[in-house]
């Protein structure tokens, strides 16, 4: 009986060798597999998520509807410092958050809108703008003009964005892994540093900074020295340094500063 089995097995393995790599079910050259332990995670339950009617990002105008457009001063302090509005989650689960200051013009907004609308699945996800359409006029003089002759004409409109501001919020019956790729693609094209966060990861990020402040071993803090104007250091500092405590330099955020 054994010899018959041996012949059968031998014949089958010969068949396999003859077919080369197009082997069917036998795979005699592979090693023996034994049953092992594998625990699988339970997938998340999205049954309580309500999706809005309009799920894609709305079209944003290039300029506001002004009858008489007025030129404005440069006012660069709308880029400086941390954001106080639109810096928390509302309805969505994931967001692109600005990690520095900058101006978003219509080209950036269109890029975000088109990329996200094209790549997301409207059956399961929705996206919301957290940033206004361009409203700040930016002037430019013609090419090759000499200095003087008044302020230039309005060239375009931009939206100022501060550190910590949300740009786009995404939510729905999705997990981070599905959405992250699309959103990092968008985040890398923005004119300032931006990162993709989920609710949990943003909370962890903020907690990390709070812990850094707590367990800082340095007895000297920027705040203490500037508040007390020790050594007359405020001669070389700006009034904004009192608010920002050395964490910001112009429009840049310094993450290693506590």
């Amino acid at each position, binding site marked *: 009986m*054994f010899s018959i*089995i*041996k012949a059968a*097995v031998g014949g089958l*393995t010969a068949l396999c060798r003859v077919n080369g790599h197009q082997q069917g079910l*036998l*795979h*005699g*050259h*592979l*090693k*023996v597999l*034994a*049953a*092992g*332990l594998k*625990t699988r995670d339970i997938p998340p339950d999205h049954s309580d998520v309500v999706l809005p009617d309009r799920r894609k990002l709305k079209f944003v105008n290039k300029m506001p509807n002004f009858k008489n457009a007025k030129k404005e001063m440069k006012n*660069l*302090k709308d*880029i*400086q410092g941390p954001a106080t509005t639109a810096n928390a989650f509302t309805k969505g689960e994931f967001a692109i958050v600005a990690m520095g*200051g900058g101006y978003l013009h219509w080209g950036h907004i269109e890029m975000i809108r088109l990329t996200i609308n094209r790549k997301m699945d409207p059956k399961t996800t929705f996206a919301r703008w957290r940033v206004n359409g361009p409203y700040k006029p930016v002037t430019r003089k013609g090419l090759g003009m000499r200095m003087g002759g008044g302020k230039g004409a309005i060239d375009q409109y931009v939206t100022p964005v501060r550190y910590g501001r949300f740009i786009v919020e995404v939510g729905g019956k999705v997990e981070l892994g599905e959405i992250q790729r699309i959103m990092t693609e968008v985040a890398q094209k923005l004119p300032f540093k931006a990162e993709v966060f989920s609710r949990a990861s943003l909370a962890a990020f903020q907690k990390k900074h709070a812990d*850094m402040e707590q*367990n*800082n*071993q*340095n007895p*000297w*803090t*920027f705040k203490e*020295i500037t508040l007390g*104007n020790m*050594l*007359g*250091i*405020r*001669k*070389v*500092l*700006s*009034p*904004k340094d009192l608010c920002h405590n*050395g964490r910001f*330099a*112009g*429009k*840049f955020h310094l993450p*290693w*500063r*506590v």
Partner: protein
Amino acid sequence: MAATLCRILLPKQGWLPFTQCVRHGSKAVTRHKRPLHFLKQKLMSVTRYIPPPRPAPPGAYPRQTIRDQEDDPFTLLVKKNLKSVFQESKMIAVVQNSGSTADEMILLKYKLHKHGITVKFFPNQVVRSFLKDSTYSNMAPLFIGHTVLFISKEPKVKEMLSSLRTSRHMLLLGACIDNTLLSAQGVVSYSKLPSVAVVQGELVSGLTLLTSQTAAMLQRHPAQLSALLQQHVKQQSSEGAPKA
């Protein structure tokens, strides 16, 4: 760059210096990182973040023992199987499998099945935790790496060794035969032992050696017996004379 001094009228609240030196260079917000005043650089370095000291590098000390977790249902099932295996079988051999293919496995299984030996696979983690609680705790060091269990009701060691000799990838590590733990060499010497009946016969014959010899002598011709006894007396006297 001309240095201009600006006198600014300040409100009575707040403490700000009356004169501020403003150089006309770049503005506060620039695309590049503005070069810091040397004093500000010093201030930033003095007030840098110093993290708390780490207790020990991550790999310095051995990890504490992992606390006992509750077994999941699959582990419990496997442990039940193991318990029945250890109760029913007399021979449990642990063999290391270094990459045998599926057809080699099939051949080996058929060879052993003829002699009533089954080949079993169990996860090492589960086996070790099972052995920890049972009387066979000294077998735990055998279950490291890719192991296979050969189980049989009767200790058929010779057949098992012959089939292992022919297989290229199987290496015997140890065995538990009749509740005694044996190493690989121990198993080989066990296989060379004669069977139980033979040993019993030898023992019996050894015990009854003298009585059987006397019985044989008595059965022979009495003349031979008398000759033997005379010889024996002569020998005794000859031994007695040189001693004295």
